[in-house]
């Protein structure tokens, strides 16, 4: 039998269900794997072995009593460290929160616990999810399990690396401009940004509220579907949570894409997207043709403006959302301030890293008197055009296919010092957040041993079709090897 840490969530679920293995053994195998590898990968900000084993024992006891188990009972999970976890340190990888322990659980935290998941720990991110490599983490940089000298992508780089290194079969992330899909691509795992409103954001520490969305990481499309099923529940605590019941996502994984209409927006293959990445995505499209889908080139002419829009809208919302870190209600406080304004300023100077300050400044400027119309209002209008491009596509296509990231994982430090270079990592993912659609990234090949990501974009609330297409490709392409060697 394979090592427990190698198994998918679906396989673990079956093994636990048949009584071949206990939840305790599954949790321990993953905790051991974390203990062995995380000192090198550094995916986790906080490991929670006590919680993991207690939750595992709870489900073993329930099973022994003959109780019906919830769908993910005993399956290990890692949560990005911007998900509130009651009584468990939640840092957003920022110094400003110190060792803050939330007094409540995020809805997503509650849902995965109720679904039976066992919490291994909280994963590293770029501070407040602002970045594409985890190099902006206020704590440390996570390593890419395929090459420890390279970044895992970001901002959900810790979650992607934890899943890629088989430290956890499942993890959660949040995606504001690509923060699930881009690290999934760079780490060779599956990552999905559901439709805006599909998963409750209650208790997800806010970055840009009109763009943030929670989604799953896994090593297979089926596992991603299982986790999405647990997360996609309407929630009265989030007024942007859509009051729509999710369909059975696993039932969508038929392997059949005959007649599926695929559009390929040419703007996503433009200059700046590495030739190897373009070639890998075109090969994936050939495979879709072989499987009976129709593939046609199309255009989303405003996609090129997505990045500029994003860097107005997201910092504008962030400058407002991050106003709450003032040294009064949570986290750290600079203790030498004489007056209250000085306390705000010194606490924020001490607690925030450069990128966060940078974006707060950018957003405050874009919203300030005299510049609001030129920047923020203009960006919201162009956002409408980006969204309309997608709507026109949905008249003719079921999904769109594009690269996820313009390149494979880059070296740690490679993009430091250039304020634009890092931001270009998200050119293929940002337009989807602007429009609110759903999209998945999954592996579609390797360049010199580093994974390449394929992005499949779907209509709002049509995660089922995206998962069906992704699963059919995954089964047909069968990329090997799926586990990095992690040899010293």
């Amino acid at each position, binding site marked *: 039998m394979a090592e427990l840490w190698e198994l998918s969530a679906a396989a673990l679920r079956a093994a636990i269900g048949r009584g071949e293995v206990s939840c305790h053994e599954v949790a321990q195998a993953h905790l051991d794997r974390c203990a062995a590898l995380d000192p090198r990968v550094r995916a986790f900000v906080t490991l929670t072995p006590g919680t993991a084993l207690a939750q595992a024992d709870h489900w073993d006891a329930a099973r022994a009593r003959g109780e019906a188990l919830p769908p993910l009972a005993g399956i290990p999970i890692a949560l990005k460290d911007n998900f509130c976890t009651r009584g468990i340190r939640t840092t957003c990888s920022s110094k400003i929160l110190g060792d*803050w*322990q*939330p*007094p409540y659980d995020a809805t997503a935290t509650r849902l995965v616990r109720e679904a039976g998941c066992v919490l291994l720990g909280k994963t590293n991110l770029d501070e407040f999810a602002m970045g594409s490599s985890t190099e902006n983490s206020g704590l440390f940089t996570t390593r890419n399990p395929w090459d420890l000298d390279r970044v895992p992508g970001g901002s959900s780089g810790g979650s992607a690396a934890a899943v890629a290194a088989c430290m956890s079969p499942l993890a959660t992330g949040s995606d504001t401009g690509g923060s699930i899909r881009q690290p999934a691509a760079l780490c060779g795992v599956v990552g999905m940004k559901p439709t805006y*409103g599909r998963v409750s954001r209650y208790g997800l520490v806010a970055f840009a509220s*009109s763009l943030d969305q929670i989604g799953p990481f896994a090593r297979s499309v089926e596992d991603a579907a299982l986790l999405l099923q647990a997360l996609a529940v309407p929630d*009265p605590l989030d*007024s*942007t949570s*859509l009051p729509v019941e999710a369909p059975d996502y696993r039932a969508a994984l038929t392997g059949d894409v005959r007649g599926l209409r695929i559009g390929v927006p040419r703007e996503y293959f433009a200059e700046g997207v590495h030739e190897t990445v373009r070639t890998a995505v075109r090969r994936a499209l050939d495979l879709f043709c072989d499987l009976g889908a129709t593939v046609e080139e199309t255009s989303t002419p405003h996609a*090129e*403006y997505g*990045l*500029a*829009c994003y860097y*107005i809208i997201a910092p504008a919302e962030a400058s407002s959302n991050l*106003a709450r870190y*003032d*040294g*009064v*209600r*949570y*986290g750290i*406080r600079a203790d030498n*301030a*004489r*007056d*209250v*304004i*000085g*306390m*705000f*300023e010194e606490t*924020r*100077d001490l607690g925030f890293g450069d990128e966060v*300050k*940078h974006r*707060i*400044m*950018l957003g*405050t*400027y874009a919203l*300030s008197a005299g510049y609001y119309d*030129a920047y923020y*209002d*203009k*960006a*919201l*209008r*162009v*956002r*409408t055009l980006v*969204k309309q491009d997608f709507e026109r596509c949905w008249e003719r296509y079921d999904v769109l296919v594009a690269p996820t990231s313009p390149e494979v994982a880059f070296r740690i430090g490679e993009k430091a010092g250039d*304020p*634009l270079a890092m931001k270009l990592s998200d050119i293929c993912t940002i337009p989807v*957040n*602007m429009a*609110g*659609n759903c999209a998945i990234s999954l592996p579609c090949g390797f360049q010199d041993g580093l994974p390449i990501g394929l992005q499949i974009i779907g209509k*709002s609330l049509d995660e089922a079709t995206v998962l069906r297409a992704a699963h059919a490709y995954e089964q047909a392409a069968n990329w090997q090897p799926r586990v990095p060697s992690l040899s010293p």
Partner: protein
Amino acid sequence: MPRLTLAEVEHVALLSRLRLTETEKQKLADDLNVILQQFDRLQAVDTREVPPTAHAMTLTNVFRADTARPSLPRAELLHGAPEARDEFFVVPRVVDTE
């Protein structure tokens, strides 16, 4: 588009409640100007007839029944604060005594 001056950086820093060193101010002015140049591209797009999109989903306000429910426990909330006393957050003096 206008370029950010050092004086504007200082003004925005004040609005943002960020204390910046002289070196930080200059670096921010330089970096932000690189980003702001990117925004110039947007001016080329004709948006006179295009409405703004503040939100991807066309949601209208959502109401819930106006029924009382328990709040989060006060002690737990205060526990996370840097300084608290009785049932209050403690901050430096805001009002002068004179």
